């Protein structure tokens, strides 16, 4: 069946290939192409430290062709896949320049606020204050991620909200989506996005704020609908 789909779509080039587990509907790349590995550290590991799987992966990579690295990915210390994903989600109508500038302004504002706090704090508390905006961003996102989600399942004519485990991708997506919608809707007309975003991120970092509340509400709903958990069949 996988071969037929590959041929029927007609887009993948003539070189034949074993079936993929998750066929992409329309990719310009032949399915045998592997994802590129951009981080420099993974190429500097000496041979002995690799496990069996990594050795196999290395051998496989030596034989198969590799896709081109996308323009958002780079080996420099400043490129972070999470930040790129967040920037893409903030982007409207393809205006990446604006989205990226908003993101950098947000990170700058976070740094400034934290530095202010740092300089005002007494000596013993200075250690606890986190100044690195990237660390704050990652921690805030982690705190916002829900553990369990709800899904609509129709049974016997009625639709129930069934608690369902979420994949990592879905958790990250929900956390980012909530942050962005929260910042867009509940802000004063005159406040700039970076300011509001930095506010929300700092609150989320300390496990406070409307996004964390939304996460808790979702958890409570899931707990309340615990009785319907057996409706899930996957």
């Amino acid at each position, binding site marked *: 069946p996988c071969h037929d789909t590959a041929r029927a779509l007609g887009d993948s080039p003539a070189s034949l290939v074993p079936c993929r587990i998750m066929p992409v509907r329309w990719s310009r790349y032949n399915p045998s192409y592997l994802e590129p590995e951009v981080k420099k550290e993974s190429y500097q590991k000496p041979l002995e430290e690799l496990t069996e799987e990594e050795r196999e992966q290395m051998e*496989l990579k030596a034989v198969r062709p590799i896709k081109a690295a996308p323009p958002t990915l780079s080996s420099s210390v400043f490129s972070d896949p999470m930040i790129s994903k967040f920037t893409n989600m903030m982007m409207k109508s393809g205006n990446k320049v604006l989205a990226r500038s908003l993101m950098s302004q947000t990170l700058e504002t976070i740094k400034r606020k934290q530095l202010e706090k740092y300089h005002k704090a007494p000596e013993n508390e200075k250690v606890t204050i986190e100044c690195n905006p990237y660390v704050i961003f990652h921690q805030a996102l982690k705190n916002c991620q829900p553990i369990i989600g709800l899904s609509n399942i129709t049974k016997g004519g009625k639709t129930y909200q069934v608690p369902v485990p979420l994949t990592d991708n879905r958790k990250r997506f929900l956390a980012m989506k909530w942050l962005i919608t929260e910042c867009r809707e509940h802000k004063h007309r005159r406040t700039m996005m970076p300011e509001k975003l930095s506010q929300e991120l700092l609150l989320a970092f300390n496990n406070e704020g409307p996004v964390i509340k939304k996460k808790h509400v979702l958890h409570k709903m899931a707990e309340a609908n615990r009785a319907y958990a057996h409706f899930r069949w996957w």
Partner: protein
Amino acid sequence: TLRLICTTTAVQRKNVGASGPEKYTEAFIKKQIEEFNLGKRHLANMMGEDPETFTQEDIDRAIAYLFPSGLFDKQARPLMKHPTEVFPEQRKIQWGEDGRPFHFLFYTGKQSYYSLMHETYEKLLTVQKHQDQLIAQDSSIPLQKEKRNLAGSRWLTKIELEEMLLEKVSDDDYSRFIQLLQKLVALPCADIEEKYIQKFSKEVPVQLQKVVIEPLQYDERGVAFSTGEGQRKTARATAVVYDNGTGKITVNGIDILHYFPVLQDREQLLFPFQFLGRIGKHDMVCTVSGGGRSAQAGAIRLASAKALRSFVTEKEVEFMRQAGLLTVDPRVKERKKPGQEGPRRKFTWKKR
């Protein structure tokens, strides 16, 4: 109703059932081969070359010269190839004059496939018997199997198997056959049947370093440099990377800070240098045309990565390839389809 009067006999014959793919007799194929060889000699004479040493490439070039065609599909253009390549191999008649088939599995419908499966299973049984004998003698299974280089070889694809067996093989049958082969290979004493297994496995070129890396060139001042070309969407770029530089990069005569005001593009330009750790060591002069801002940056990135290959060891070239710096990005704008507003967006659905 109008009845056609001046018609050919072919049109008048109606309601004739399809008789399957055209069968070519051996005599017909032989005649085609003779005609091809004669035609090859005639063509060589026409082109003024020696008929004895006229290869297939010469034939293709001659035909392309004598019959120029602007058709898009390469297979629709005039073609002159050896008849064995043009006419697909077909099976001869599988039954004798009395109507009795030769092969004992003829009535299964897939005689070659089932006979192949039988053979492979027999090999499997012999290997298992051998293993049992060894256990009975030594009570130890020799684990001499160092793992067959899985990455270096692959099984025959379905189409190659079909060509080998000269009959259609369905997806299920193919996967069953591959599973059986894998089972055979997984046994410790499978080395006995190595020859048989090799019939169905193909070598994959171990390194995809089929590309030739050009040596460095030196200009008048004695500075080493190398060129590279890159493309992305509609942008085409050429880059010349000089050694002993200060890290200055010029695009179309303009400094990159002025040509690429966006940080992302400059990051992409520096990506190959940063990956190799050679940021302040090279100078670069590039020319780029076509495409948009991001496409030009991607094209220059590819061009500079290709140019840097000459300055760097083979291992690092392999690392660059695995980082995705040396592959041409094939993604282009998708075409708009009729009946839709864009490549994917459909028209607004209106109830009435």
